[in-house]
Every structure is written in structure tokens, then in C-alpha cells.
């Protein structure tokens, strides 16, 4: 189980070396974005894959983290020791406060109400006239750390993002097998049983929701620095939808599936958009096929293929 995630992280770590032979900045940029969205996708997989809480407003957490950095930067505060905690706290607080309301609902209602809060954040950002409103806000300087500028060096920044991704992955991995994670997973299995055991599952779900928001905030902090720009589009419901597609594509409830899904989604989109302008005409049906044919996403598909392969090559029974 640990081999695949290790291979993924190793691949990310070796990419800059391979990229040196080609169009380095383009590839670094692309994979950095993949890793940044993977962090947010990990947080979403925590909710959807382990808690059956389909949050449809997840892009808001990224956007809030990104805006926190950009707004501070527009006031001349570039120090990451200030802007990173602010981004994390803002996203976590937003998740916590909206979670107190969202988590009183279930199923489709939960999806709709998280979507509503996501849209609220979107329209709030659009109406922030002093900070660019609809047009977004350009960051004239990237964050600094202890007065140094690690985010200006593309390669160093790349490895910082990788370190963040590995850290978040380990955190989530630890979370789902911990006592907390066991209660959280139990709530998905049978909420009534959990209540009669003495667990007030609402408190556990709220904590998970806030943690997931924090991961989104971290992704937002990194994204703002990677793009030197924030805009309300970061919080659009399409972005939230993309995140859900990513984790389903990779395989729900596996954590590394979230990373694989984000990678596959981004690379496929990148490749297809190079082929034709109407690439979503191909992309859409492809996604439908994956969901229909491969329950458990790409990871599930790989598992099925492996099982089939073993069956074909098994020693004939005497």
C-alpha cells in the first residue's frame, strides 16, 4: 500500500531533473499546479471518501486562502510567517462556521448548502472593489520567508510545494487510522449506531470539515504565489466540481487516488486542449466512461486489470 504513494512522490521529486532537458518552466509550472490542487483534493477526499460528506463548495477554501495572501500583499505584508497563518486561519474559520450549519443537513441538502456557501464566497470576492472585484488582484511580490524569497526560485518553490503535499498526505493518512478517523469513518457507515455508542458525530464531522478547509487554505496560499494573481474564478462552482471529479477519477477514499486523479485530470486536460479547441467534447465522455466502467476510479481500474492479469497468468491448477 505504501509503494504507490512513494512512487508518486518520487516521480514528482525527479521531474525537475527530467524537465531540464526540455521546456522546464512549462513542466515545472504544470506539475506545481497539480501538486497544489492535490493538496486541496486530499482534503476533499477526507470528507467525501472517508465521511461521505460531498462538499460542493471546496473551491471557496482555496480562494479564501489565496485572497488572504494577495490582500495582505497589496498592503505590503509579504512575510509568509504572517500571511500563511492568516490564510490557514481564514479558510479554517470559514469552514468551521459554515460547517456548523452545513453539517446539520445530510445527502443532497449537504451538497446544495455547501454549494450555496461556496457561491457566497465567490460573489463576495467579486464585489471586493478595493481588491480588484471581478478582475481579480495581481500580486506584485511573492511571499517572503524570514525576509528571504524562496518562492521566487521556481525550483525551490517546486520542492516546497512537494514537501507540503507529502506533509499533508502523511497528516491525512495518520488522521484516517487514528481514533478520530475511526469515529469519522464510523459515522459514514452507520450514524445511528455511532450515536448509540455515545459519539456525537456532528463534532467529529465538524472537526474534519475544518481540517479539510485548512488544507484548502494551504493550497490557496501556494496557488496565489504560483500564479502571482488571485481572482473570484478560483472560487467558482466549476472549480469545486473539478475537485470532485478529480477525486472520483482517481478513486475515492484512498488519499493517493486524489493525487492520481488530479494528475490525470490536469494532464489529460492539458493534452486534449492542445489537440482541439473543443477538447471538453472529448473530455466529458471520457470521464463518464471512467465512472461507468471503473468503479473506484483509476485505482480501481488498475486493481481490476491486475486481478485479471494474475488470473490469466496463474499456474494451471492440477
Amino acid at each position, binding site marked *: 500500500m505504501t509503494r504507490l504513494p512513494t512512487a508518486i512522490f518520487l516521480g514528482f521529486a525527479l521531474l525537475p531533473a527530467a524537465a531540464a532537458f526540455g521546456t522546464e518552466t512549462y513542466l515545472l509550472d504544470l506539475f506545481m499546479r497539480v501538486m497544489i490542487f492535490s493538496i486541496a483534493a486530499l482534503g476533499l477526499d477526507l470528507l467525501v471518501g472517508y465521511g461521505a460528506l460531498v462538499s460542493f463548495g471546496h473551491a471557496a477554501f482555496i480562494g479564501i486562502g489565496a485572497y488572504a495572501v494577495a490582500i495582505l500583499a497589496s498592503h505590503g505584508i509579504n512575510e509568509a510567517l504572517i500571511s500563511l497563518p492568516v490564510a490557514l486561519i481564514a479558510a479554517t474559520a470559514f469552514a468551521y462556521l459554515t460547517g456548523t450549519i452545513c453539517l446539520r443537513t445530510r445527502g443532497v441538502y449537504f451538497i446544495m448548502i455547501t454549494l450555496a456557501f461556496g457561491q457566497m464566497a465567490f460573489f463576495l470576492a467579486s464585489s471586493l472593489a478595493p481588491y480588484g472585484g471581478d478582475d481579480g488582484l495581481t500580486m506584485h511580490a511573492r511571499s517572503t520567508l524570514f525576509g528571504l524569497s524562496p518562492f521566487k526560485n521556481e525550483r525551490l518553490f517546486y520542492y516546497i510545494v512537494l514537501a507540503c503535499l507529502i506533509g499533508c498526505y502523511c497528516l491525512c493518512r*495518520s*488522521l484516517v*487510522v*487514528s*481514533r*478520530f*478517523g*475511526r*469515529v469519522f*469513518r*464510523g459515522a459514514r*457507515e*452507520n450514524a*445511528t*449506531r*455511532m*450515536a*448509540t*455508542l*455515545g*459519539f*456525537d*458525530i456532528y463534532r*467529529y464531522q465538524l*472537526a474534519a470539515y475544518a481540517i479539510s478547509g485548512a488544507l484548502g487554505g494551504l493550497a490557496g496560499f501556494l496557488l496565489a504565489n504560483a500564479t502571482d494573481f488571485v481572482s473570484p474564478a478560483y472560487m467558482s462552482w466549476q472549480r469545486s466540481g473539478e475537485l470532485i471529479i478529480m477525486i472520483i477519477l482517481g478513486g475515492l477514499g484512498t488519499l493517493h487516488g486524489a493525487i492520481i486523479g488530479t494528475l490525470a485530470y490536469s494532464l489529460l486536460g492539458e493534452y486534449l486542449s492542445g489537440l482541439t479547441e473543443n477538447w471538453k467534447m472529448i473530455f466529458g465522455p471520457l470521464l463518464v466512461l471512467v465512472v461507468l466502467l471503473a468503479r473506484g476510479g483509476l485505482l480501481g481500474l488498475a486493481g481490476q486489470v491486475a486481478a485479471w492479469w494474475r488470473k490469466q497468468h496463474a499456474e494451471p491448477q492440477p
Partner: protein
Amino acid sequence: MTAPVLQLEGLNKNFGGLAVTRNVNFEVAAGELHAVIGPNGAGKTTLINQISGLVAPDSGRVLFASRDVTALSVPERAALGLARSFQITSILPGFSAIENVALAVQARIGTSFRFFGCAAAESALNAPALAALDEVGLTKRADALAGHLSHGEKRALELAIALAMQPKLLLLDEPMAGAGRDESRRLIAVLSRLKGRFPILLVEHDMTAVFALADRISVLLYGQILTSGTPDAVRADPQVVAAYLGEEME
């Protein structure tokens, strides 16, 4: 005589125009196994649901260990020591049998807001869980997925979960429901061993089990307690025979 573990005072519940619980007054004494019997639709499960907190009564009070718990939530009541099993098996199918029980132990000891460390490797949780599984004869199936257990094993697992909570009162809603003859016999043996260790409120259809196990029996009919008494007294009560037992006893 110590105070009763559970007291129901003037409990009423209507579903629409249907009175499913009508002015129920009743007690479970410390250490006794109290059975509630009654025909289908008499309101037995609704009564249990009001005790465990899943259904709120329209009026009346539920006192648990002399404390009014009518306004408390399900998890709050469980934390006070009220454990229950369900008529329709209620387990975590995607968890292993031992994890199902270990969760009950986890609810009882220590905090569950612990984000690090593998819960499945904690012997403080696993040892009591294994003991509870042993009690119901499921030791060999500890690592099997709960969803893959046979029906009888699932019933036994529900019992183990309730046991691991080390409850002050055990509410058992038809623990034998759907179990085969042999399974029933095994469950009766388990229950008779538990008897005396915890006060038990047993709702059951299986009359053999009820008369073999119960210290006292209450008969519920159309939401009302018809009579309460020892098994012998209940068996001899002409009202009960006419209303309910007549068809089942020879």
C-alpha cells in the same frame, strides 16, 4: 432495595392519530432482567426508542439511575451507560468485527479527539474488545468484516458491542430476531450468563427465551402496559392469555 435503574413516568407518544405509547409507567430494578412482550405493533420498539433517545415522547419522563434524561440526546444517554441493540442489525458493515467492538471501548475510555497513532493497534482498545467477542463466542471471527458475518454472528456482534460499553442498563430489542434454532439457543445461553451482571431490558418475541430468562415480565398491548409480574404470574394471568399468549402457548 436500591433505586430502580430505569423508571418511565406517564410516557405518551402518538404517531399522527395513532397512540403507540399510552401512559406507560414502568421500572427496571437493579440487577434484574425485565422482559417486555406483546404482539406485533404493540409499541415495543417505539418504547425502547424513547428510552434510548431516538424518539422523543410527547409527554412523560424517562429517569435513568434516578436522573431525568428525557431531554438528553442519544450520545449523551449512551455516555451515561445506556447501551442497546437493534431489532434490525445495526453494525458498521465495513469495519472488522473487532473494530466494531473496539469503537464501543473507545467511546467508554479516553478521548476520541486523537489525531495521531493507529487506533487499530491500541491494545488498550483491542484487549477489552476481544474479551467481549470471546463472551459471545466470536473470537475466531474477530478480523472478519462485520458485513460478511452470518446473520446469527451479526446478532452476537451486536451483543458484544453492547457488552463492551460496560453499560449500567442493557436494552435488547429482539436480539433473537431472525436467528435460527441453534443460533437462538446459543444466544439464550449468552444472555443467561450476562443476566445479573447488568440490568437488562429485553424485548423479545421468542417466548421460550423470555420465560427462561426473565425475572419479571411486562405485557404491552396497544401501547399500554397490560400487566407486570413474575413469569409464573404473567403466564397465569387470564387477561394475558386472552390477549396474547393464548395463540402461542398450548
